[in-house]
């Protein structure tokens, strides 16, 4: 397309609506408008100029604010739908069929529908992420489409603008006021004291302030783009680790996802507020609610193994540090943080038994089974020993005579045991549970008598590494700078010109906050006796003016 040459001689890019230099309207449509659209200074934007190729069409689609807003509204509505029922990651089930059953059981047909439509895992669905991706593309294209022409025309603008430009400003006034060179000087002075940048060209003044605020939206969009980019990065291997571990008191475990770190739990602490020790103001609350948790804490020691050491090989560890992990106070090392997330109190750790004569209850020795690590054989008094044939950590009952364990957690330990004694060198078989004993192969003479247990607490810890955080933080920071720049400052311009026929013109424009620019103009008018102006958009004031003139 052709470039447009304005009457003032400036050559404008095709598609320009207002001459970049003098401001004359360059097409019929603009000429017909009472108030000119100043959003991008009437500059030529790619999206408004070309619409031929596929690329043009895609560009135009994404640069449209209308499209952008539909994208945002879709994300907004989808996000809201995702809060109707809990998402899968808040549901106490891990495999697909359990999850489906959960939604059905708790929420009935609606739950099933929600699950079947994939709304239960909405935020990781391809279409939701696709929408967010489109938002990102839209941000990039819409910003590029506008910022470059805007920058050019703001840079090129002349102090002296054509009357056809000035009279199409929202704030505009013309009149035969007593304006002389002297009052122009006064106006300049006043505008400077109002922190305007004042330019003078013959009989024309252009006062401008806060132009940098025009870049605010572009800076904040850049921040958002960086943020979204950071979020995308975590899909790459190595940037993001999210693991959980259950650590028992006294245990030393490999920290999953790390390169050779180990944690030892020295103890888990669970505290509640008590009425006596706490500040008495809390008394009422404790009375009403019952117990209120005060602290969840795991005291740990951190070790580093040799490079590439893995789970299960807790040898050659070097001590790094002791720490107390509390909620809100993770332990941090080498880009990793380990968080206190969950706990189980009083898990069975060790069980102590006695081998006894069933009748006389005479003891032939004691043994302790470490439930995390049961030994196959326990030697007792001379000639007596106990063999553990099988161990069922979480015993739930017999199915067709076979004992069942539903998990490796020692919630309800049971043992298949052989008791050897001088009378029975081949052993007697016994099935030992917490409260009772079964004798599957007939009446025994001896029995295993339960003595005592030791328990320990288990800490649920989350291991996290997130190398994208600095990028996200940067994006957030840039966004905040941009949004403050665009919101707390605004771009104001005031034009004053002495025309050849002796009339004076004033006009003003701001991208927001019209009251302030009018106040500025009032102050200048008072000193320089400028003609009265009209806000061509303020209907109430226009009415009032008409009322006054008509003498109502």
């Amino acid at each position, binding site marked *: 397309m052709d470039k447009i040459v304005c009457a003032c001689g400036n050559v404008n890019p095709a598609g320009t609506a207002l001459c970049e230099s003098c401001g004359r309207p360059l097409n019929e449509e603009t000429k017909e408008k009472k108030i000119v659209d100043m*959003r991008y200074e009437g500059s030529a934007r790619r999206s408004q100029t070309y619409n031929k190729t596929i690329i043009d069409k895609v560009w135009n689609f994404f640069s449209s*604010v*209308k499209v952008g*807003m539909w994208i*945002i*509204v879709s994300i*907004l509505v989808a*996000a*809201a739908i*995702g*809060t109707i029922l809990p998402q899968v*990651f*808040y549901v106490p089930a891990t495999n697909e069929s359990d999850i489906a059953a959960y939604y059905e059981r*708790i929420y*009935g047909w609606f739950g099933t529908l929600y699950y079947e439509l994939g709304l239960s895992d909405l935020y990781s669905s391809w279409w939701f992420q696709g929408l967010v991706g489109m938002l990102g593309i839209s941000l990039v294209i819409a910003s590029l489409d506008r910022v470059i022409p805007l920058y050019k025309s703001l840079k090129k603008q002349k102090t002296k603008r054509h009357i056809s430009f000035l009279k199409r400003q929202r704030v505009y006034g013309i009149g035969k006021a007593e304006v002389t060179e002297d009052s122009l000087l006064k106006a300049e002075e006043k505008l400077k004291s109002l922190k305007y940048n004042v330019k003078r060209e013959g009989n024309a003044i252009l006062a401008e302030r806060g132009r940098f605020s025009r870049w605010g939206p572009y800076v904040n969009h850049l921040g958002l783009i960086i943020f979204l980019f950071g979020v995308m990065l975590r899909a790459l291997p190595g940037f993001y680790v*999210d693991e959980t571990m259950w650590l028992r008191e006294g245990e030393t475990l490999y920290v999953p996802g790390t390169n050779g770190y180990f944690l030892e739990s020295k103890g888990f602490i669970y505290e509640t*507020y008590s009425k006596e020790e706490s*500040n008495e*103001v*809390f008394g*009422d*609350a*404790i009375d*009403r*609610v019952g117990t*209120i*948790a*005060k*602290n*969840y804490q795991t005291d740990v020691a951190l070790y580093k193994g040799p490079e590439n050491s893995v789970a299960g090989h807790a040898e050659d560890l070097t001590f790094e540090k002791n720490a107390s992990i*509390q*909620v*809100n*106070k*993770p332990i941090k090392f080498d880009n990793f*943080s380990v*968080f206190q*997330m969950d706990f189980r109190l009083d898990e069975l750790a060790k069980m102590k038994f006695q081998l006894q004569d069933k009748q006389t209850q005479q003891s032939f020795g004691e043994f302790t089974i470490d439930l995390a690590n049961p030994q196959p054989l326990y030697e007792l008094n001379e000639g007596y020993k106990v063999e553990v044939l099988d161990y069922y950590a979480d015993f739930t009952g017999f199915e067709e005579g076979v004992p069942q364990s539903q998990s490796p957690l020692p919630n309800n330990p049971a043992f298949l045991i052989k008791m050897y004694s001088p009378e029975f060198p081949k052993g007697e078989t016994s099935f030992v549970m917490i409260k009772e004993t079964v004798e599957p192969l007939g009446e025994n003479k001896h029995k295993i008598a339960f003595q005592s247990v030791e328990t320990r607490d288990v800490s649920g810890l989350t291991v*996290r590494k*997130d190398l994208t*955080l600095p990028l*996200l933080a940067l994006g*957030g920071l840039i*966004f*905040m700078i941009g*949004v*403050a720049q665009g*919101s*707390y400052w605004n771009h104001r311009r005031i034009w004053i010109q002495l025309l050849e026929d002796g009339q004076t013109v004033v006009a003003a424009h701001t*991208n*927001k*906050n*019209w*009251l302030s620019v009018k106040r500025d103009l009032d102050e200048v008018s008072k000193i320089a006796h400028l003609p009265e102006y009209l*806000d061509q*958009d*303020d*209907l*109430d*004031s226009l009415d009032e003016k008409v009322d006054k003139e008509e003498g109502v």
Partner: protein
Amino acid sequence: MDMASLSSNLLFIAFVAYLVATFLFGGAVKSSNAQSTKSFDRWGKLAITVTIIGFIANLGYFITRWVAAGHAPVSNLFEFTTAFGMMIVGAFILIYYIYKAPALGLFALPIAVLIIAYASMFPKEISPLIPALKSYWLTIHVITAAMGEAILAISAVAGLIYLLKNIDLTKKTKERFWIEAVMYVLFIVVGFVVSTVSFSVANYSAEYTYISKDETQHTIEYTMPALFGMNESVAITDNAFEPLVEMPPLVNAKKLTSVVWSILFGTVIYLLLRLILRKRISSILQPLTKKSNSQLMDEIGYRAVLIGFPVFTLGALIFAMIWAHEAWSRFWGWDPKEVWALITWLFYAVFLHLRLTKGWHGKKSAWLAVIGFIIIMFNLIAVNLIIAGLHSYA
């Protein structure tokens, strides 16, 4: 007097001051025209002075409660909602000093009063912090987020004034219907307060047992006659009101009961007023807005969003993410409260774009501002009551 009771007395003083100031702003609005600027000045000055006194008392409440508890009083529903009401007044004072529009006070203060009254219906005792809340980020995040929401709320107040002034209430239009609907919703909040207070004055209490969704038995105390019963509920208290309808285990029938009582009370009050005054509520309020400048209200509506949006972003998203990363190990977890903060943010972003680039001024912009406030209140009330997430306060 100990700190805690000093604190509640200060809150009461603030509450009364806001009520008085509302009427004073009413006086200022009535006399605000060119002829009687003197009398306007007098009313206006008095009104803002009383407002500021109330605000200082309110701050006093906040500080003394902070001292008494040893942590910022934003840790449960009562505390947070009260702080929000206080900040609405603070935001109003800020905007008043920029724009000097008394009509704003006439509408902002009753809303703050209503919010504080609503807050006071929840358990008010000072409670210690549970581990998840023990962080200075609680203070920073919640206070900044509430400040942002309060400033955004002023935009809705300006929008409401704009709409009341500019909607033609003599013609049967959609707008006329919806503006009255907004009024009606305010009456439901009044209904909540009146019903809660009435039943508590009458000392109503009844205990029931019920079977929860994990099939265990619990007891629950109703402080309002049970319109809806919990799953398989059986009264323990003698002469307890027999629930009209029993709900499945999924529904918290106690909350539902209180919602329905609020609607009943609110509707009765609303209908009574309309019968007595023989006018729509919006028609009663309209004359109070006649002297406001539409363009000024439009401008305030936009300006409040411009001032509030960055504060809200900082408090409700950025600080929230930092804290979530410290407390829950991830900066974002799609928890309902988080999601609704995001929705609020996206909504105001759309507002700004439509206004700046699509020229949505006047009524459209005013409606958006009112809807924005509804979203904020939804996040405050409904998400807390209905959708229980990590955030839901006791």
